[in-house]
């Protein structure tokens, strides 16, 4: 779709630019920063060296890499795609300079701009999203600086993880890989070996993070690469709300994404992690599109800790993602609220895992799946109650909504209970947007397309209510834009 065209355009302009630079007598060093395709120990060493990492991290990466080599790609998910050639991927590419991007919005694919406009994204932000090299970036940097000052005053550390490795090595070493071990699964092992950047957050004891970590993140989200690594630590009695992603379709040249997110919540700490994912889904025939293989896990390490995952997933060709909570501390709470939309040829296998270990632990799962076109999706959830998890409670609700007759929805709930005091509730529904519902709305003067939007947004309401305010509004609009033309 638009994304591909846009990419071509960017490349052309980059070439033009490069040749012009050459004429002027400059030599671009961009090529030197990009590794040739392929993955071996030297590549891992090279990445670590480029980042000037300490030896322990290099060793950790190498161990992950060696482990990865012994593993095979998982194929239990209800998705299908052609084999991925991991040797055809380039694992390190230095961030592209802004000057290689389009010079103004006039050079950006109009279709992409149209989508931005529909989503109501301000012009300045559109420029940033499309990678336009303009002064707007300077504005953003200054905004980011203001935020940084405020966070610093509160004692909050929020920086790229590569920076944290340099500035707070003991914190990173203490927590990295403790929630998602390097060899946890195929994609996590790959990520551990070759991750290039991501975010690091540390909220000290008793601190309530003074702002949602969102705007700043958006500004810094560019070029974190396809193997992103995020580590968030909320120390005792602290609180943080973290927002990842963006409603706007983002330009990205990498097809394979394998991110890892680790959350650690100590006694009485609370982490709210919200995601809006709208990566390029591929075209109507399923060509192109991002493969999103993510490992997200939270460890409620302390008593009374609480972690909420809220996600709105509308993008990517393939989504493989199960944000999970390990409820280790007594009275700890895990929540998962999810809306996933698959249309055209998109496939999603997503859900959560709630592992109850501590006593009196509680978990809530609310999953809403919407399939349109030839979209296909599965909810896959595991609720595990350990033998010592007295009085554990889980409530699971998964609802699927089908639009049209070529879409599919599947539910795979797994339950493992080893403690007789557990209370489990499970509700599941599958419904179609009824002809009667549509006609009812139409007979009140609402067009069919608006009626579909209204019904879908109503269906998602329980989850949208969990999103931070500004994002809930954006999520509504995102659903509307995503569903355009999905009816009939």
């Amino acid at each position, binding site marked *: 779709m638009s994304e591909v065209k846009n990419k071509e355009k960017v490349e052309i302009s980059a070439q033009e630019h490069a040749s012009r630079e050459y004429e002027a007598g400059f030599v671009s060093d961009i090529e030197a920063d990009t590794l040739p395709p392929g993955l071996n120990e030297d590549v891992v060493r090279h990445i670590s060296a480029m980042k000037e990492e300490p030896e322990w991290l290099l060793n950790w990466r190498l161990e992950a890499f060696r482990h990865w080599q012994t593993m095979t790609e998982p194929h239990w998910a209800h998705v299908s795609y052609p084999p991925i050639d991991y040797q055809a991927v380039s694992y390190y590419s230095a961030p592209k300079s802004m000057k290689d991007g389009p010079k103004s919005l006039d050079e950006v694919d109009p279709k992409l701009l149209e989508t931005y406009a529909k989503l109501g994204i301000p012009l300045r932000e559109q420029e940033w999203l499309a990678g336009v090299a303009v002064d707007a970036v300077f504005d953003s940097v200054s905004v980011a600086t203001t935020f940084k000052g405020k966070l610093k005053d509160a004692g909050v550390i929020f920086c790229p993880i590569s920076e944290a490795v340099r500035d707070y090595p003991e914190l990173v070493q203490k927590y990295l890989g403790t929630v998602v071990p390097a060899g946890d699964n195929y994609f996590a092992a790959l990520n551990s070996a070759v991750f290039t950047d991501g975010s690091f957050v540390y909220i000290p004891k008793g601190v309530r993070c003074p702002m949602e970590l969102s705007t700043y993140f958006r500004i810094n989200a560019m070029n974190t690469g396809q193997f992103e690594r995020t580590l968030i630590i909320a120390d005792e009695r602290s609180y943080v709300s973290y927002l990842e992603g963006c409603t706007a379709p983002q330009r990205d040249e990498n097809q394979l994404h394998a991110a890892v997110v680790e959350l650690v919540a100590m006694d009485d700490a609370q982490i709210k992690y919200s995601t809006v994912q709208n990566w390029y889904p591929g075209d109507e025939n399923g060509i192109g599109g991002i493969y999103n293989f993510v490992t997200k896990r939270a460890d409620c390490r302390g008593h009374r800790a609480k972690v909420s995952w809220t996600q709105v997933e509308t993008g990517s060709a393939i989504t493989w993602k199960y944000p999970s909570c390990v409820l280790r501390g007594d009275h700890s709470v895990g929540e998962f609220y999810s809306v996933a939309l698959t249309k055209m040829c998109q496939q999603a296998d997503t859900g959560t895992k709630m592992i109850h270990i501590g006593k009196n632990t509680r978990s809530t799962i609310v999953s809403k799946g919407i399939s349109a076109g030839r979209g296909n999706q599965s909810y896959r959830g595991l609720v595990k109650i350990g033998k010592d998890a007295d009085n554990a409670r889980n409530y699971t609700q998964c609802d699927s909504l089908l639009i049209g007759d070529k879409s599919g929805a599947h539910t795979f709930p797994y339950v493992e209970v080893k403690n007789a005091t557990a209370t489990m509730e499970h509700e599941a529904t599958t419904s179609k947007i*009824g*002809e*009667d*519902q549509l*006609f*009812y*709305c*139409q*007979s*009140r*003067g*609402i*067009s*069919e397309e*608006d009626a579909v939007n*209204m*019904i879908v*947004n*109503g*269906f*998602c*309401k*329980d989850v949208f209510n969990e999103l931070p305010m500004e994002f809930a509004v954006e999520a509504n609009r995102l659903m509307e834009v995503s569903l355009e033309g999905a009816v009939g």
Partner: protein
Amino acid sequence: MIKIENLHVSVGGKEILKGINLEIGDGEVHAIMGPNGSGKSTLSNVIAGRDGYEVTQGSITYKGKDLLEMRPEERAWEGIFLAFQYPVEIPGVNNTYLLKAGVNARRKHQGEQELDAMEFMQLVKEKAKLVELDQSFLSRGVNEGFSGGEKKRNEIFQMAVLEPSLALLDETDSGLDIDALRIVAKGVNTLRAANRSIVMVTHYQRLLDYIKPDVVHVLADGQILKSGDASLALELEERGYDWVRAEAHV
């Protein structure tokens, strides 16, 4: 207001309406009565534009326009309203929100300014009183968890807000207890106006005790077999439908 000529309608290849002729003038209240399966609901659904009904012959002219050419929402914009026999639940969609979208889509179509949230709330509160609908219903999901009677009251409330030119009440009295029936009838009577025609589809005379029709039609076997004034309904109540059939087929 509306003129139906020789209307033939099939559903799934089966002919349900077999040549309906019906004309309703401005401000008139008509009752369409008939036994089960006679095509009463089919007629109101066809007028409102529901999918799945194939018009094989005939025409419907509404305010001088060809009604059958219009999409359901266009018919709503032109002032047609259907109170459903079985109002549909739409979970998570706020009752007021649905109505506001409907009202404003119509205003937009007519080139009027859309109502803002404040103006709309005022309108809605005023109309809710008409059918004694508790304010808490306004913010609930559309018909979500409503009792049968509440759903029917909600339909008349919507009619009050949308202010149609032609209202079709499809078995609005079914499932109502006597108190609810009185409330609904009172609402409808308040909405009677010189520029508003009402068609009541019903099995029973009982609704007509509260809402006096100008004309009563008997629909049976896909045709209007007999028309008369309000006294016809009483006669039907007493004698059933068979004599009408017998009379018509002689």
